[in-house]
């Protein structure tokens, strides 16, 4: 294997891992507060469709349009998550049911497709696309240049967010409170932490990040909207959080591993390696299954990292 090939694999691992980093970080925050959100896929699709719509409608300089589109996409994801928060935190319905309902509601044959059709953006040629930014003029450096210094702004944003989330979780009082809420909402409540507010905020922020991850598809990967274009990325993001033992740094690595797997088959084919392409196409999903099966057996024994109250609604009066 030559260096160019390895660089090409790493670069595409980052490109296709980035939506997973964003959505995965969001889900990680949500789950840390004890809320399981299975609606990630639906939130990503809503982010993808609204982000694309806004980028098609607005005039003005490209960078400004894209920033507004990203904010709106995050808002759309956050709004969806607010529904989940209301249902699972306030009304205390089963979180799995609520999350699944949202994915079905907003999914490939649901709301996201509907608004895409109403807005008539299907088949439109995207007017704006996030391009790579050569950071500090270092993009020309061999090997590290294209990997570290020649990415699109979403990628830099995702790196910043990983650092920010890690710092928040482990180095701030709010992060400590958040972990307390996820581990034992009753104790947190006794300490005077507002459990409901923490869960609401982190569910909505999680949804916003999922929306942003979805927008990556329509604003960066391919500037085109089509029904269901996230193709299961939301589910992979949920699996990633388990794979990462609820740690942002591991999540970044895991996301790039999935990204690499998703394009490895294409790269090998392009280099004339004769392997059944279906095998490679199925790899990311196969890995999802392996990760989920593996993680759940380990967790069954040691429960590494799982927020103890994950998926359990909290009600003060029950105590």
């Amino acid at each position, binding site marked *: 294997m030559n260096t160019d090939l390895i660089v090409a694999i790493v670069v*595409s691992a980052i490109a296709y891992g980035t939506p997973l980093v964003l959505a995965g970080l969001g889900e990680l925050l949500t789950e840390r507060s004890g809320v399981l959100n299975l609606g990630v896929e639906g939130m990503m699709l809503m982010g993808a469709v609204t982000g694309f719509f806004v980028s098609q409608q607005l005039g003005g300089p490209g960078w400004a349009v894209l920033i507004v589109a990203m904010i709106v996409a995050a808002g759309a994801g956050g709004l969806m998550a607010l529904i989940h928060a209301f249902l699972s935190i306030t009304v205390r319905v089963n979180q799995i049911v609520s999350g699944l309902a949202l994915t079905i509601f907003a999914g490939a044959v649901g709301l996201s497709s509907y608004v895409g059709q109403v807005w008539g953006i299907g088949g439109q040629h995207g007017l704006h696309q996030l391009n790579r930014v050569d950071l500090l003029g270092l993009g020309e450096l061999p090997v590290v240049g294209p990997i570290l210094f020649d990415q699109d702004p979403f990628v830099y944003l995702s790196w910043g967010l990983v650092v920010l989330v890690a710092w928040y979780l482990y180095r701030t009082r709010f992060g400590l409170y958040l972990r307390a809420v996820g581990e034992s909402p009753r104790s947190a409540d006794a300490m005077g932490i507002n459990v409901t507010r923490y869960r609401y905020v982190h569910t909505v922020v999680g949804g916003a990040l999922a929306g942003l991850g979805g927008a990556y*598809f329509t604003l960066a990967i*391919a500037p085109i909207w089509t029904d269901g274009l996230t*193709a299961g990325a939301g589910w992979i993001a949920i699996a990633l959080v388990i794979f990462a033992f609820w740690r942002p740094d591991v999540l970044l690595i895991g996301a790039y591993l999935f990204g690499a797997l998703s*394009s490895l088959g294409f*790269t090998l*084919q392009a280099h004339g390696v004769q*392997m059944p392409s279906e095998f490679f196409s199925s790899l990311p999903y196969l890995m999802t299954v392996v990760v989920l099966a593996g993680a759940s057996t380990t967790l069954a024994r040691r429960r590494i990292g799982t927020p103890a109250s994950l998926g359990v609604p909290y009600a003060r009066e029950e105590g």
Partner: protein
Amino acid sequence: MPSPVLTADALSKWTTSNPYKAAFIYVGAPSDAGWTHAHEVGRLAVQAAFGGRVQTMYKENVPEGPQAAQVVTQLINQGANIIFATSFGYQDTLVAAAKAHPNVLFEQATGTEQLPNLAEYYGAGENGDYLSGMAAGAATKNGKIGFVAPYPIPEVIREIDAFTMGARSMNPNATVRVVWTNTWFDPAKERQAAESLVAAGVDVLGDGQDSPTTGQVAAAAGLKWTGYDSNQESFAPAAWLTATTYNWGPYYINDIAAAMNGTWKTHFYYGGLNDGFVIMAPFGQSVSAATQAAILAKEAEIKAGTFDPFTGPITKQDGSIGVPAGTTLPVYTPTGLSKYSINWFVQGVIGNPAG
């Protein structure tokens, strides 16, 4: 667009209050700017031609396989008189449905099975792909062409073969690297596949996908591109060379008129450049006058019937003889070698025809 000729009988039978119902099953979304978009243009042409006498309906994003049966049943319950299934993978479903519903007419695009109420329709896309290949062969500087391909099925394989033979007619040393995406339509995967080819050093891209994503990758990398299905020039004008496009409307109008008149009979329609079913998209700015002239001359030969890309001698990828000298492959025969049964790549293709 041909205007439908309806008999007096049909005119009195099919009215705005009792329209003839024509249904279309789409494998993708009409918004795909490619294959399904071309069918959707055809459906709208039907609607425009017949007005209120025909009610068209469609189901989009219908998975190929057993789930399609449910959609067919639904359409029949909604009163569909004729159902057009627009992708190869619906064939088994359609055969079963045609047997179960002898009073409904069925038409299967790109397939082979015929029944008294099941017809086949498609066209010689491979002839257009030969011409696209010529444009690609003329455009490549390093002789390396990449091709983003959907599924390893005969329809796609013969189009890649024709594309490659066209490219090598302009540049005998040209090679075509094939990357399979195993999807008709998935912009993210198509982009990954196209990027992997760019990373492997190709300087022209072709595709058989339903979205124009390959072209966007080509444009971003400063390369040239041949599209597929629809005129997709606006998606990447700087990269655009040309494309094979399909004009489904006139066919749909003719067949629906026949069905309304009661004269519909099962058939195996195979349109082409000569009857306007296959149309070459306009050339991009970078296609030189000499290349355009060569392509147009070849197109005239195909239309006149004096040239067929699948005339021997054709050498397979492994060096053995695919089609012996003097033989021209028939479109389809139930047994023996025909265009519909080619499952091997010609010399010059780098890739695995088995996927």
